[in-house]
């Protein structure tokens, strides 16, 4: 039973669930309820159910590709669990997401239902948007940013304002700039199985240029639409953008999978830092924090983001070698040992 629970936690992929939780919290803060822990907890139940459903669909559809791209690193492709169990997890989590959203508002039910349908269409045939290059890069971020952000908004109030949607557009553009880079890791299997990702179609340089455009547009939109923008936030965001663009230049010229992984992980840290800074800004301004204390926190968060991104770019991610599963698990040893590390990585697709 405990092993099964750990499996479910690994399926949700901690890094991804934290990112989606930050989008949810940002939506809640945008609706002036950033400090409401109860509302956040209720919204997170919906988001967790939605993510589990999405991951179950994706892993079921990509089992063969994962054997090439991520040998032994996905529970299903590693043989740690069966397809029937994955189908059950997907159905139950989808029902839980819908039921939990019904306890919020009817608008939340519509967002959740639309998210589940799009997520299934992204991975499953005959729709299978994942194989359609640019469309995949547009649809997946819509699910992973739009659903949690709007659930956060609708947990607090029953309508969206134009500035909410503009802020969502900024977050969405930034996320497209990051999600395009996940295909670097998967390029071999994607090409092998005819998955026409943006990278496979247009190559490394154009992918990095497009990502840089999305980063720039996203940060400009975020700064232009944020409530009560400040000089401190603008300065830190400018630093984040400069860092991301510099890392993208390095990625365009990088050689070797390990180097690419370091740079992409560093870019992802800056991206999550941007979301965290926005959430902190909205929470502090709503709480009426004095200017100097606000500027100090924003500055410290900027330094933390820069430091961790720099460390990641130089040294790369740490890898866990402990297995979350018992030795009796019916899978290759490589698979058991790698799943913990991969669950932190949290790539979907």
């Amino acid at each position: 039973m405990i092993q099964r629970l750990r499996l479910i936690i690994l399926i949700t992929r901690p890094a991804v669930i934290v990112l989606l939780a930050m989008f949810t919290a940002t939506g809640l803060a945008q609706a002036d309820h950033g400090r409401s822990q109860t509302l956040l907890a209720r919204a997170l139940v919906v988001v967790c159910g939605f993510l589990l459903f999405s991951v179950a669909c994706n892993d079921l559809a990509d089992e063969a590709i994962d054997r090439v791209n991520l040998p032994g690193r996905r529970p299903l492709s590693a043989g740690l669990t069966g397809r029937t169990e994955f189908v059950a997890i997907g159905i139950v989590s989808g029902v839980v997401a819908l039921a939990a959203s019904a306890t919020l508002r009817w608008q939340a039910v519509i967002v959740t239902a639309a998210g589940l349908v799009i997520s299934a269409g992204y991975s499953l045939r005959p729709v299978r948007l994942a194989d359609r290059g640019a469309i995949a890069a547009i649809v997946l971020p819509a699910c992973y940013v739009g659903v949690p952000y709007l659930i956060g908004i609708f947990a607090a109030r029953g309508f969206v304002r134009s500035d909410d949607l503009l802020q969502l557009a900024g977050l969405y553009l930034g996320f497209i700039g990051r999600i395009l880079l996940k295909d670097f890791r998967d390029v071999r299997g994607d090409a092998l199985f005819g998955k026409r990702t943006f990278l496979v179609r247009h190559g490394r340089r154009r992918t990095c240029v497009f990502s840089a455009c999305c980063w720039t547009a996203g940060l400009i939109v975020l700064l232009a639409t944020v409530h009560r923008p400040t000089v401190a936030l603008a300065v830190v965001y400018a630093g984040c953008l400069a860092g991301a663009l510099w890392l993208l230049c390095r990625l365009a010229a990088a050689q070797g999978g390990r180097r690419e992984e370091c740079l992409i992980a560093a870019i992802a840290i800056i991206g999550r830092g941007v979301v965290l800074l926005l959430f902190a800004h909205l929470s502090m301004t709503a709480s009426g924090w004095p200017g100097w204390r606000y500027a100090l926190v924003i500055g410290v968060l900027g330094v933390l983001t820069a430091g961790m991104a720099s460390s990641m770019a130089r040294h790369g991610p740490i890898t866990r070698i402990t297995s979350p599963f018992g030795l009796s698990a019916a899978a290759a040893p490589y698979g058991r040992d790698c799943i913990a590390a991969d669950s932190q990585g949290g790539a979907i697709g």
Partner: protein
Amino acid sequence: MLAGVDINGRNREQPGGPVPQRAVWTIAGIFVAVVLSIFGLVVVGCAVMLYVGLSHYASNK
């Protein structure tokens, strides 16, 4: 001497960087999270803690 191993047999190319360097960012993040929580922003504090904790691992999002 083996490539990637220093004179004391330690791995010079430790994934994720030297432990003290990682620890500095982790401690700094925990400090910021605690300060934010003390001043009433518990949710932001938790977000900072999770952000720092997971930033040592590979992620492409």
